[in-house]
C-alpha cells in the first residue's frame, strides 16, 4: 500500500464541540399536545374518555360526598322523607356499625386483643416488606413462627396466660378477612414453590402427585373447594377430631392459592437459562443449595408481578368464605344491611361502597409495593 493517499474530505481533522441537546418542548400546553392530542385517533379517544368521565364522575361525587349523610343514629337520618333532602351514601350507618365491621361479634371487653393483633400483624408486615428494615431475618422468624403462635394465644385465648376463650364463631369482619388473607398468602408461597419444584422433579411419583393436585385444584372453582373443605374435611379425619369451622375454609383457601402460586413459580423456573443450573452444578452445589441460592431468587424475581397478582386475587377471593358461613367483612355488611333500625334505600350501596374502599386500599397497596420492589431490583442489577 502506498502512503501517498490523499486524506479524503470526509475525515474530520479537528474535533467539534458538543452540541446542546435538542430543544424539548415544555409546559402544560406542550404536554397536552404531546400526550393527549398527538394525532386524530388519539384526539378522538381523548375526547371520548373526557366525555365518559364527565358522565360518571359528577353523580358519583354527588352520591358519595355532596348528598352523603355523615352523622345520625338511626334510619331517620338517611331517609329522604325524614331528613328533608335527597340522601346519597349513608356514612352514619357505617360509622354506627364500624365496630361490628372490624371485630364481628368478638366480645366487647376483649376487643383490645384484636387491636393488639392488628398491631402485631402490622409490625410483621412492615418488618418483612420494608427492604431497609434492620434484621429482616429476625423479621421472617417473627412473622412465620412467633406471630402465628402469638395470634393463636391472643385471639383464641388460653388459660395459662389468663385470657378468656373466644370461640372462632364470634370472630368476624375485617379481623376474619385479614386472617384468611394472611394465612392464604403465608402458606401459598412456600407450598406453591414446593409444588412447582415437584412438578419439575425427576421422580415420577412426586411429579405425578404435584400435577394431579395442581390441575385438580385449578380445575374447580374456589367455592367448590371451600364447600368441600367445609363438609368433606371432617369426613377424612377420625370421628373424635373436629376441625374448627374457621380453620376449614383457611385450609381450602391455602390449598387453592398454592395451586395457582405453583403455576406462577413454574413460569419463573422455566424462564431460567440452563446455564444457571449448570454453573451451580459444576461448583458442586447440591440440589437444594442450587435451588435456594441460585435458581429461586432469580426465578421468583422474574415473576413478582404474577405473585402479587395471585395475592391480590386471593385477597379479594377471601370474601367467598361468607358462603360457608364465615363472618368476614362482606358477611358482616350483609348482616347489618338488613338491620331494621337502619333500613333506608341507600344503606346497601353504602355498605358495599365501604367494602370496595377497604379492598381497594389493600389491593392497590400491594400493587404499588410490588412496582416499587421491581424498580429497585431493576436498578440494583442490570444484566
Amino acid at each position: 500500500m502506498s502512503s501517498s493517499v490523499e486524506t479524503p474530505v470526509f475525515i474530520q481533522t479537528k474535533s467539534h464541540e458538543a452540541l446542546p441537546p435538542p430543544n424539548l418542548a415544555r409546559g402544560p400546553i406542550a404536554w397536552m399536545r404531546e400526550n393527549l392530542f398527538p394525532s386524530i385517533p388519539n384526539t378522538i379517544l381523548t375526547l371520548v374518555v373526557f366525555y365518559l368521565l364527565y358522565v360518571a364522575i359528577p353523580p358519583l361525587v354527588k352520591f358519595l360526598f355532596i348528598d352523603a349523610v355523615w352523622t345520625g343514629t338511626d334510619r331517620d337520618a338517611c331517609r329522604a322523607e325524614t331528613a328533608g333532602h335527597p340522601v346519597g351514601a349513608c356514612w352514619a350507618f357505617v360509622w354506627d356499625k364500624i365496630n361490628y365491621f372490624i371485630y364481628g361479634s368478638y366480645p366487647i371487653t376483649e376487643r383490645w386483643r384484636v387491636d393488639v393483633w392488628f398491631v402485631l400483624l402490622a409490625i410483621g408486615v412492615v418488618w418483612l416488606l420494608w427492604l431497609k428494615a434492620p434484621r429482616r431475618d429476625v423479621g421472617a422468624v417473627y412473622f412465620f413462627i412467633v406471630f402465628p403462635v402469638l395470634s393463636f394465644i391472643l385471639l383464641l385465648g388460653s388459660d395459662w396466660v389468663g385470657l378468656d376463650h373466644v370461640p372462632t364463631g364470634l370472630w368476624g369482619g375485617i379481623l376474619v378477612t385479614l386472617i384468611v388473607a394472611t394465612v392464604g398468602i403465608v402458606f401459598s408461597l412456600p407450598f406453591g414453590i414446593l409444588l412447582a419444584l415437584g412438578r419439575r422433579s425427576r421422580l415420577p411419583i412426586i411429579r405425578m402427585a404435584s400435577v394431579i393436585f395442581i390441575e385438580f385444584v385449578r380445575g374447580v372453582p374456589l367455592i367448590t373447594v371451600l364447600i368441600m373443605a367445609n363438609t368433606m374435611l371432617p369426613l377424612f379425619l377420625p370421628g373424635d377430631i373436629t376441625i374448627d369451622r374457621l380453620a376449614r375454609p383457611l385450609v381450602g383457601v391455602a390449598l387453592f392459592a398454592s395451586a395457582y402460586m405453583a403455576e406462577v413459580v413454574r413460569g419463573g423456573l422455566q424462564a431460567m437459562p440452563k446455564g444457571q443450573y449448570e454453573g451451580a452444578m459444576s461448583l458442586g452445589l447440591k440440589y437444594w443449595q442450587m435451588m435456594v441460592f441460585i435458581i429461586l431468587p432469580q426465578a421468583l424475581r422474574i415473576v413478582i408481578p404474577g405473585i402479587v397478582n395471585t395475592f391480590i386475587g386471593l385477597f379479594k377471593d377471601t370474601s367467598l368464605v361468607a358462603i360457608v358461613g364465615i363472618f368476614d367483612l362482606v358477611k358482616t355488611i350483609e348482616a347489618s344491611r338488613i338491620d331494621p333500625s337502619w333500613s333506608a334505600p341507600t344503606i346497601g350501596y353504602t355498605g358495599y361502597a365501604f367494602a370496595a374502599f377497604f379492598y381497594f386500599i389493600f389491593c392497590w397497596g400491594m400493587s404499588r409495593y410490588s412496582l416499587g420492589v421491581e424498580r429497585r431490583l431493576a436498578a440494583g442489577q442490570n444484566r
Partner: protein
Amino acid sequence: MATTANAIQTSATVDPRAEPAVQMLGVNKWYGEFHVLRDINLNVRRGERIVICGPSGSGKSTMIRCINRLEEHQQGRIIVDGTELTNDLKRIDEVRREVGMVFQHFNLFPHLTILENCTLAPIWVKKMPKKDAEEVAMKYLTRVKIPEQANKYPGQLSGGQQQRVAIARSLCMSPKIMLFDEPTSALDPEMVKEVLDTMVGLAEEGMTMLCVTHEMGFARQVADRVIFMDAGQIVEMNTPDAFFKNPQHERTKLFLSQILH
C-alpha cells in the same frame, strides 16, 4: 477407528506409572437415536494440558461435560481422580468438587456480586468460614486482575472480565482439574487475550486442563496434546507440533486448512 485412536494415544508420551487424572474407557453416549460419543478412550495425566478441537457438533462439549457429569454417559467407564462416575450422587458431588468448569457464556449468577459468586460454593460446599472464603476469593480475583470489581454485579462487567471472574470462581474451590468449553468464543476479539493470558498462567502453574477451543496459538503455546474430534470420535491425538505440521487424517487436514486460514 478406535484402534487408530488408541494406537496414537499409546505412541504419545504417556507415563504409565502416574495415576491418571481422568480416564475415559470405551465411553459411548446417545441422545435418543443419535450416537454423540463413539468409543472414546482418553487418559489425562496429572498436570497435563489438553486442547480439544473439531467441527461444530462433533461432540467436544458433550465429551468434557461427561467428565463432571453435566451429561450422563451410557456405556464405558469414566474415572476422575480415582473416583468412578456412576449414578451414585455422592460420587458425582465428590467429582464436581474436584473439577472446575468454565463455560462459553460464563454462567455467572447475575443476582450475586462478584465476591458472592466466588464465595458461595466454598461456603456451602466446602463449609469454609465466610471470612476465609472471602480471603480466598480476593486472592483469586487479584490473580485474574479484577480485585477492584469485587462488589459489582456480573452485568456491570465486560465479557472478558466476566469470564475471568468465572475462572476465579472455579479456582476458589481449589479444583484439581479444570474444564474449559470454548471460553473465548463469546468474547469480542480484544478481550480474548486477557482470558487466554489467565489460562496460560494457570497452565504454567501445572493445573490439569482440558480445553475445547479453536485458539490454535494457545494450543501451540501450552498444550501437551491436541485432540481432534469428528462425528463423536477422537480422530487424531498428538503433540501440537506433530498435530499442526503433520496431521495424519484427511479430515484433520481439511479442518486445519479451514481454521488456520
